[in-house]
């Protein structure tokens, strides 16, 4: 057998063996192999179920006896709203087996193997941190065109098509290139500057409509030891929620469209510069809560609900997310971004609102008509109200809030949408180019500027560089506003 001590040049000793296996083990541990474990075999799914008969009650022709399978993102909105809608589906199709329902926080880990294997479920709420890249799914022809659903009669009023019952921007958001609608955004999010009505009242102030008023209010608050603004410093891609609509208000929607289209020098527009300089002013005058660049979204929201800062750029989910730390008399409200003055292209009230909770029907789903039919049920007034009262968020269905008690934040969001009227903007960077929007513009650009480490001019130059690189990168799919 082998010698038990390490003599040189004498074959494999015990220690050599141990040493060598340690070296081999070392190679394997920080392994990259987890990637390859998602083997990309193409086994193809089973046959699709047969399409059912279309009728007034079943305009999409869902098979009345077929199984429907649904996977819901179990995040801030939970899963109950979907379960309720599935019950209504089973009532409508009593012969179909109970809808197969699954809810997970890990959409991608759960579903990626099924996409690769060609056996995805029929309806997916593709949301959360593990959202699958929509651009890639569309580009690789993995999704079913939802145009049939859009043109089907709506649940409550057969005279109206589904697409005519939706809020502005929802259909466009589901389109990528041309007419097909790939995604149905179910929730509706209002972005803007969120504040406590009570905090403003304590300062004898109203929400400022111009930036001069904003700076004056911040100065007033500073004297009382309250910061003007805070934001998610570690995730500065929250800043665009109020900054982008401000750019649109100053320079018109075209500026944002050019930015979305990754046009050369889109960021060099004077409106961008004006808006950036206005925000930079907050840093220079010391109106930003001390330590903000080191806070994550929850920490910044907590500082804000504690009254340490007046304003925070955020989305309408903040009411639910910050509920635990929000005092009962906080009186949450949202403001459209303050403008510069009356020479702005768009009136005060211009706001960013867009769809959330993207629902998709995979191309290889066995029962795509069933998936769309469930969406049609979810877009009925009854289901929509159920969702709104359960999770404090609006849905894609226009209206549908009558007769239910709205929370202060939601009420203010509805009012803001009314005030905005036509002037709802919908920048697409965050769903078209996630990395560009979050990591490059957000973290490396705006985050650095608001922490005072870059000037507005440097920031614009840096961001334009990122945008140009993204426009050039052939491994990214590019989109244009229609």
């Amino acid at each position: 057998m082998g010698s038990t001590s390490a003599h040189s040049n004498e074959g494999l000793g015990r220690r050599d063996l141990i040493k060598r296996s340690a070296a081999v083990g070392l190679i394997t541990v920080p392994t990259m192999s987890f990637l390859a474990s998602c083997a990309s075999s193409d086994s193809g799914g089973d046959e699709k179920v047969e399409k059912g008969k279309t009728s007034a009650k079943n305009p999409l022709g869902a098979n009345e006896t077929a199984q429907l399978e649904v996977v819901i993102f179990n995040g801030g909105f939970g899963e109950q709203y979907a379960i309720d809608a599935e019950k209504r589906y089973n009532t409508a199709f009593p012969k179909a087996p109970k809808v197969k329902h699954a809810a997970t926080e890990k959409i991608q880990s759960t579903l990626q193997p099924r996409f690769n294997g060609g056996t995805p479920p029929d309806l997916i709420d593709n949301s959360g941190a593990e959202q699958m890249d929509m651009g890639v799914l569309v580009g690789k022809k993995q999704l079913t065109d939802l145009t049939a659903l859009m043109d089907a009669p709506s649940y409550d009023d057969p005279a109206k098509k589904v697409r005519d019952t939706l809020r502005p921007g929802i259909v466009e958001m589901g389109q990528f290139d041309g007419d097909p609608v790939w995604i149905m955004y179910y929730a509706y999010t209002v972005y803007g500057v969120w504040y406590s009505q009570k905090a403003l009242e304590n300062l004898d102030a109203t929400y400022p409509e111009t930036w001069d008023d904003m700076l004056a209010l911040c100065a007033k608050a500073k004297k009382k030891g309250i910061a003007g603004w805070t934001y998610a410093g570690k995730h500065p891609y929250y800043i665009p929620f109020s900054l982008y609509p401000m750019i649109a208000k100053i320079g018109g929607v075209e500026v944002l469209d050019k930015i979305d289209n990754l046009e050369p020098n889109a960021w060099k527009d004077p409106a961008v510069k004006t808006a950036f300089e206005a925000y930079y002013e907050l840093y220079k005058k010391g109106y930003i809560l001390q330590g903000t660049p080191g806070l994550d979204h929850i920490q910044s929201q907590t500082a804000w609900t504690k009254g340490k800062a007046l304003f925070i750029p955020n989305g309408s989910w903040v009411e639910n997310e910050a509920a635990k730390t929000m005092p009962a008399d906080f009186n949450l409200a949202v403001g459209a971004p303050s403008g510069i003055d009356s020479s702005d292209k768009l009136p005060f009230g211009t706001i960013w609102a867009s769809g959330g909770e993207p629902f998709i029907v995979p191309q290889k789903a066995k029962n795509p008509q069933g998936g769309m039919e469930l969406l049609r049920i979810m877009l009925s007034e009854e289901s929509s109200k159920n969702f709104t009262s359960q999770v404090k968020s609006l849905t894609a269905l226009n209206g549908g809030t009558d007769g239910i008690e709205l929370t202060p934040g939601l009420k203010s969001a509805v009012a803001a949408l009314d005030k905005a009227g036509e002037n709802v903007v919908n920048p697409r960077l965050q769903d078209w180019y996630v990395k560009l929007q979050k990591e490059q513009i957000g973290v490396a650009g705006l985050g650095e500027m608001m922490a005072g480490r870059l000037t507005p001019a440097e920031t614009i130059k840096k961001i334009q560089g990122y945008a140009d690189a993204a426009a050039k990168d052939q491994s990214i799919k590019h989109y244009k506003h229609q």
Partner: protein
Amino acid sequence: MQHGKYRFIVGFLIAPLALYAIFVIWPFIQSIYYSFTDWTGLSSDFKMVGFDNYKKMFEDDIFWKSLQHSVLFVLLLPLVTLALALFLAFMINVGGRQRKGATIAGVRGSGFYKIAYFFPQVLSIAIVALLFQFAYNPESGAINAALSAVGLDNVQPLWLGDPDLALWCVMAVLIWSTVGFFVVLFSAGMASIPKDYYEAALLDGADRFTTFFRITLPLLWDTVQAGWIYMGILALGAEAFAVVQIMTVGPGGGGPDYSTTVLPLYVYQTAFRDAQAGYATTIGVALLVVTLSFAAVVTKLGRRERLEF
């Protein structure tokens, strides 16, 4: 008997070797294969693109940045952690003042220290990272609160929000959470060093410094080397990923201006956020090269005659 020894050993190890081949070697080969494709990770449809991914990688600033951070991790973490652990273990076991009845002893209360140092090891790395995220909170965190408590109101660093500090903050957490394990490991190693060596050294008038470098360290070398390898794994693998991801980046991407991005994190983001699994495996291959060179260096430097006692 020397002849055919490998075959003999392999005969015993056939089952583990087969598992190793299937679950380690084969995925490696697959990864290298995928690094030449444009696989998105979301569909089974992809094609070969030759060296495009590698070309892209060499022009990718973020890749170089994360490589730099990972190399810094793998050089500094083992060095600092092991040096600190050796010092602490020495003080606990040998470094104390001479007392009646014992030639060598640790400092007073060494039993307590041993447990206290080991304590972080009990916590999961995710929890450690979360706790420190609260501590580093510049607005209401423990560290800045402590600074103001001692009158340093003007010194309120942004910690994880400052590109110059963030990486060091993350490293400090990794050191804090692992040093205890090595204190215990080295203590066990020191306990097996015969006391007579120390007695002899003390009779010859050696001080603590000399005893450490002339007796403790040489006799502990094997253990230190094992620790070195273990720390290397940690610095290039899951732990470094976890603390960076939890403390600075978060699920959507973040961290001040790429100042903390490490290779495993970049692999993860490219694959699962940007849906570029092909490019991600390319970065994975780069990580493999770094790991291999580290392994080569460690085994080369560590080769040294073993002392039997």
